[in-house]
């Protein structure tokens, strides 16, 4: 059946929405993500139970999605506009949930990518940046070889990040995706030891140096030499590869960053009875993420703030502790790191092991005999515009040139360098063509809108209790179950996924402006729906008399266009009436819909989007009855939608009555509670009523 419109079909909704999103400010979560992951899109898909599609959105920009789902510092959450209402959306937990739910789909999709180009590429280092570049270049049809000095791929992800945060099987999911594409991995192969840089250069058409910052900075104070003083990275590597580590019973970690937290928590898990951190910064100034600090404190790790290391004290060679000096300030007036001390105030912290975690640096000694230049401060010379080093064809990416950062920032750098290598190998100019990921976000939520948004607490994830988790390297954080994930996904306000006006169709009638509960539309010569106000409820689109309003996050016509196949699936010789139920799925997702066989459900994200024409279409396609099922009282995440939805149902009753049909064939129902299967009960009751009507009046 045609939809009866003779207007030219627009392009598929997905394509249209993707293009539109590029032209408009990004949702703040997406703009904040270093690779612009379309968070709003995949969270929306999760909310509808469409996990495989959510995975596709995530993976389209992030080849180490599983890694990020457990360790990302989630700048998306810090940018979330829900912060102005209650708490940010738990984006990272939702990502983990989607990846776990779609794991089989993902594994079944792994395929070898045919090498369509005869150019060979070497990637030195297999951290986030190197893996990303390998992934992208394999997708483009290049032959890619990764050189990794460790026995396993992953760089710091496998050799330093503790498994209680990043289980190796989680990392392996990402690596398996990339290797499946046909990327060759040469592990246990260190450049300069097993093969020279010049050999690599000779054998390949382009080379990427992505070796990261693999060495710890040492501390030049008296007594800070072996034995008993350890450096962070070798310590974490030994722990990761389960080598024996001699730790005393009182471990003191010098440093206040995220690596220092990893070191302290690892020491605790290796059996150190007492672990203390000492750092220059105050609690507020500490560079470690607050949540990681909190988790460390839960694990009974003490933190001494505003003390600077002065000397490691020893007695007969054995460490007795660290002499520290009071810090006056850490940063200068320009915010630069420039600590000052009160040399008259000192203290002594007892310890028998000291681990220095004050920063990392790179080791570029493998470049010594090559033409790749390294500057006087030991940094590789490069052009950030092209990612190229001083030697044509040799590129750099990740922390080795950007300095310390997050995994996802390294992914962004990896994407850029892969693109640079591709453009170079194609013989084009690189400058100006690399993606920037700098996008304008939608403005902050206006206060009057934040005030009317329903408060919904963030769904918490469970952690292993501190007393249990410190005895092993088991992952301490649990993921969401389906119910929690769907609830959490329902908290998303859909920034950037809301209403847009086709100005060619808008006659400035004011309907949308009058109807919007959030004051988003502003009608002048045409309507403009302001994205900072719009909550993507969809209430306006079915009211527009010119059908000029579309929604970015879904196709307003899809209920209508799918109706024929939906109702057509009911047995024509049926005894029971064919009932179509348009059900608000915000609170239960796809769960709990064990409806009677004769009820065909259409999950919709809110009944606000139901159009009179959708309802008529159901009857046109042969439904005996149509129900619009609202979520339980008090559960609606939007404001003031009831009046409009019930008015539409009343109008549909009038219209079908004009055709001689019993008006009772359509009803607006409300689920009875949020527990059990509240939708089935009301649908079954309604179905019975429709059955009586059909018996009385015929089909």
């Amino acid at each position, binding site marked *: 059946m045609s939809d009866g*419109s*003779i207007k030219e079909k627009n392009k598929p909704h997905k394509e249209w929405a993707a293009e539109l999103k590029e032209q408009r400010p990004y949702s703040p979560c997406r703009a904040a993500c270093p690779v612009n992951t379309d968070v709003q899109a995949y969270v929306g898909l999760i909310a509808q139970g469409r996990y495989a599609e959510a995975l596709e959105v995530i993976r389209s920009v992030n080849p180490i999605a599983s890694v990020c789902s457990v360790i990302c510092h989630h700048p998306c959450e810090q940018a979330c506009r829900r912060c102005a209402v209650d708490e940010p959306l738990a984006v990272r937990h939702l990502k983990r949930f989607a990846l776990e739910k779609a794991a089989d789909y993902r594994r079944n999709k792994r395929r070898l990518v045919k090498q369509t180009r005869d150019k060979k590429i070497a990637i030195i280092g297999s951290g986030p940046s190197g893996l990303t570049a390998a992934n992208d270049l394999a997708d483009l049809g290049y032959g890619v070889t990764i050189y990794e000095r460790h026995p396993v791929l992953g760089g710091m992800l496998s050799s330093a990040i503790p498994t209680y945060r990043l289980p190796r099987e989680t990392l392996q999911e990402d690596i398996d995706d990339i290797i499946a594409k046909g990327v060759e991995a040469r592990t246990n192969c260190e450049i300069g030891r097993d093969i020279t840089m010049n050999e690599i250069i000779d054998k390949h058409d382009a080379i990427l140096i992505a070796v990261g910052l693999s060495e710890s900075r040492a501390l030049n104070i008296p007594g800070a030499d072996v034995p008993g003083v350890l450096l962070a990275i070798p310590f974490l590597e030994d722990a990761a590869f389960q080598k024996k580590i001699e730790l005393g019973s009182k471990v003191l970690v010098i440093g206040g960053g995220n690596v220092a937290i990893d070191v302290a928590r690892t020491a605790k898990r290796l059996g150190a009875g007492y672990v203390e951190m000492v750092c220059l910064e105050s609690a507020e100034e500490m560079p470690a993420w607050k949540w990681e600090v909190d988790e460390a404190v839960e694990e009974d790790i003490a933190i001494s703030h505003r003390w600077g290391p002065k000397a490691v004290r020893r007695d007969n060679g054995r460490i007795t502790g660290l002499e520290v000096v009071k810090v006056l300030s850490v940063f200068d007036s320009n915010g630069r790191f420039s600590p000052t001390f009160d040399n008259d105030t000192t203290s002594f912290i007892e310890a028998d092991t000291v681990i220095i975690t004050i920063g990392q640096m790179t080791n570029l000694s493998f470049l010594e005999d090559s033409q790749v230049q390294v500057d006087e401060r030991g940094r590789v010379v490069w052009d950030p515009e092209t990612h190229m080093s001083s030697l044509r064809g040799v590129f750099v990416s990740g922390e080795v040139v950007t300095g310390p950062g997050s995994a996802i920032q390294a992914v962004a750098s990896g994407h850029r360098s892969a693109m640079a290598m591709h453009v170079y190998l194609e013989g084009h100019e690189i400058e100006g063509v690399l993606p920037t990921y700098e996008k304008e976000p939608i403005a902050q939520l206006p206060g009057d809108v934040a005030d009317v948004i329903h408060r919904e607490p963030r769904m918490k994830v469970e952690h292993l209790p501190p007393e249990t988790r410190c005895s092993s390297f088991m992952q301490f954080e649990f993921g969401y179950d389906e119910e929690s994930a769907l609830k959490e996904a329902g908290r998303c306000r859909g920034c950037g996924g809301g209403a847009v006006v086709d100005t060619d*169709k808008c*006659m400035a009638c004011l309907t949308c402006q009058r109807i919007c509960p959030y004051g988003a539309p502003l009608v002048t010569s045409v309507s403009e729906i302001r994205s900072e106000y719009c909550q993507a409820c969809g209430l306006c689109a079915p009211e527009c008399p010119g*059908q000029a309003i579309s929604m970015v996050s879904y196709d307003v016509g899809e209920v209508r266009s799918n109706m024929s196949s939906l109702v057509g699936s009911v047995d024509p010789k049926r005894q029971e009436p064919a009932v179509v139920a348009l059900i608000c799925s915000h609170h239960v997702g796809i769960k709990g819909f064990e409806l009677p066989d004769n009820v065909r459900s259409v999950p919709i994200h809110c009944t606000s989007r139901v159009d009179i*024409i959708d309802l008529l279409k159901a009857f046109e396609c042969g439904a005996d009855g149509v129900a619009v099922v609202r979520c339980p009282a008090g559960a609606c995440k939007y404001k003031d939608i009831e009046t409009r939805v019930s008015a539409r149902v009343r109008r549909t009753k009038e219209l079908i009555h*004009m*055709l001689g049909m019993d008006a009772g064939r359509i009803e607006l129902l409300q689920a009875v509670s949020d527990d059990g299967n509240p939708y089935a009960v009301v649908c079954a009751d309604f179905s019975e009523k429709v059955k009586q009507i059909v018996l009385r009046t015929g089909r």
Partner: protein
Amino acid sequence: MIVGSQKPIDEIWEMVKDFKKILVFGCNTCVAICHAGGDKEAETIATLLRMRASQEGVDMQVDHTSVMRHCEPEYFDPVMDDVKKYDLILSTACGVGVNFLSDRTGIIPVYPGINTSFYGAVPEPGVFEELCAGCGDCILHMTGGICPIARCSKTLMNGPCGGTKEGKCEVSDEMDCAWYLIVERMKMLGTLEKLSEVLPPRDWSTSRDGGPRRVSMEHIRAYEEKEGEKTETAGGKKE
């Protein structure tokens, strides 16, 4: 704007039931604003007609489309080739649009999908009130901005009549007496004494009594002539 309201589906069905291929053709200006005949209502009517055809066991194709206005040829020109593929056009424009389109569709009939009601305003969403009758000789400056032609049930020029009661018209308790409103408004404006002026009998030739009306603006027409080639090809030709 022009206000219309949908015809009952039975009435439409009686008009269209013998046609096989029908286009419901919406107009997206005045009648869209009053939710009678815009793109959305055109689709709604098309759906109802398909359902009715199915109930009656009649084989009938009913589609819909719309343009911004039916009363200027440039707007419907781009879809005219498609429009002419139908046996019947059910226009949900106002009567102006139905007439205007009908002059340009040759052997294809154009039928009205709505009743064109009046010139009105929108005091609140979903409510439309007649405030002007288009009589062609405006006297609102003499009646406190309230039109007795449109708003008095008898179109009296010297009301109120004996049927006024507590500000309401004898036709209906819910209908304001226009002359009551005029007097109260002019009191407020301090211009009540204007009502004692004796006016000459009204010339109704500017209204319907003078036959169909036409406004010809020479200065605009001169412009159009210069641009003549444009209008010549813009669907403006009568058939």
